[in-house]
């Protein structure tokens, strides 16, 4: 791959994983899964977050060759996750509207109690109730720390729209948390 050997331990795992080392990739997975799963949960919902998280890591594995190390692996992975979530959401919506094959059964089988502090749980519930566009911007800006420029590009909207949706989201969140 012609990459310089980095000092950072994680970067050496990235390099090993790109060469096909499953154990190195598993270490990367363990390190980052919580953040990726959180993104999926907040943007699309807990019922599909597991699937999406798996897809993100499978996709990352297949694209590792293209990761040149200009950014941190976590940053690269997270961006990949944002794009994946946005592009998959349409399919998921179609699937949900069809009352998908087995999904009802699955959701009745699996009712995982979320372990989380009450405070964070309330906030996450409020996030889930936001309108989709406002939620996207809120999660990406206030939770994940992306800039309006980056968000506007990812969502295909103007910077002004990103700003106004953020404000709308915060106002709605404020009402819900009162």
């Amino acid at each position, binding site marked *: 791959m012609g990459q310089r050997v980095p000092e950072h331990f994680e970067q050496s795992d990235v390099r090993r994983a790109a060469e096909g080392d499953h154990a190195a990739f*598993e270490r990367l*997975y*363990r390190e980052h899964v919580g953040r990726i799963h959180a993104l999926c*949960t907040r943007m699309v919902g807990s019922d599909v977050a597991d699937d999406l998280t798996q897809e993100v890591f*499978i996709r990352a594995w297949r694209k590792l060759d293209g990761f040149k190390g200009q950014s941190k692996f976590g940053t690269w992975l997270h961006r990949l996750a944002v794009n994946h979530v946005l592009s998959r959401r349409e399919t998921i919506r179609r699937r949900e509207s069809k009352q998908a094959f*087995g999904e009802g059964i699955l959701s009745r089988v699996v009712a995982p109690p979320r372990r989380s502090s009450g405070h964070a749980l309330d906030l*996450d519930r409020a*996030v889930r109730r936001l309108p989709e566009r406002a939620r996207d911007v809120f999660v990406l800006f206030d939770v994940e720390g992306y800039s309006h420029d980056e968000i506007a590009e990812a969502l295909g909207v103007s910077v002004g729209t990103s700003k106004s949706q953020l404000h709308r989201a915060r106002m709605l969140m404020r009402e819900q948390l*009162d």
Partner: protein
Amino acid sequence: MTYKDNEHPEWTDRLSDFLDGGLDPETHAAFEAHLGECGSCRGVLEGLDEVRRRAAALGPIEPTRDLWAGIAATIRAPAAGAAEGATVIALPTAERARPDIGSRRSHRVSLSSMQLVAASLVLVVGSSLATLTLRSQSPTSTPPVAATGSEGVIMPAGTAAPPPADLALELSSLEQALAEARGVLDPNTVRILERNLSVIEQAIEDSHRALMQDPENAFLAEHLDRVYHRKLEYLREAARVVESAD
């Protein structure tokens, strides 16, 4: 849109910009002056700031089950995922093959990659479905017991719960039918089946384990029974989908 106690929308509408430092210095100063004398706007600002601070403090959410086994199964069997342009059987949950997934292949997976999928299934699901695929010569139905000799990542050997007697026969014959159909199934479909079944198997496993710890608990016993019924429903539905795709 109307907000509670939002007396000065011309100010409050830009309070997020103010908070995020997005105003030019002159406007920023004007905001500070207004906020100094307007309790209503100050209240809104404090609320927004609290939302912002709490959002920034939100942490990771760990999945409640281990997702690695499913990922490992897929990345260890690259051929199974590399089916761009495949004839996707119309399971509503089937995701369309994406353009960057891999090279073009015929719409039927080769035997060896099917065996890989099956092998990874033993790893992920530990279900008799995989066992049956590997022992497809044996027509006798086998109750769904975790495959012995599997790596037991998810299902440690000896913890598998036998299904209720009244369901065992139908479960195993449906599993066998699906195992036989597997050879002509699109890899995506296999993956979805595999994933969904692994969720169900995990639920069976979890409730069985809970029952072992508390064998007198009627609620847990009933729950386990219910999960087995769900599995049956799921397999019936899968079998219908597979049949209609023939």
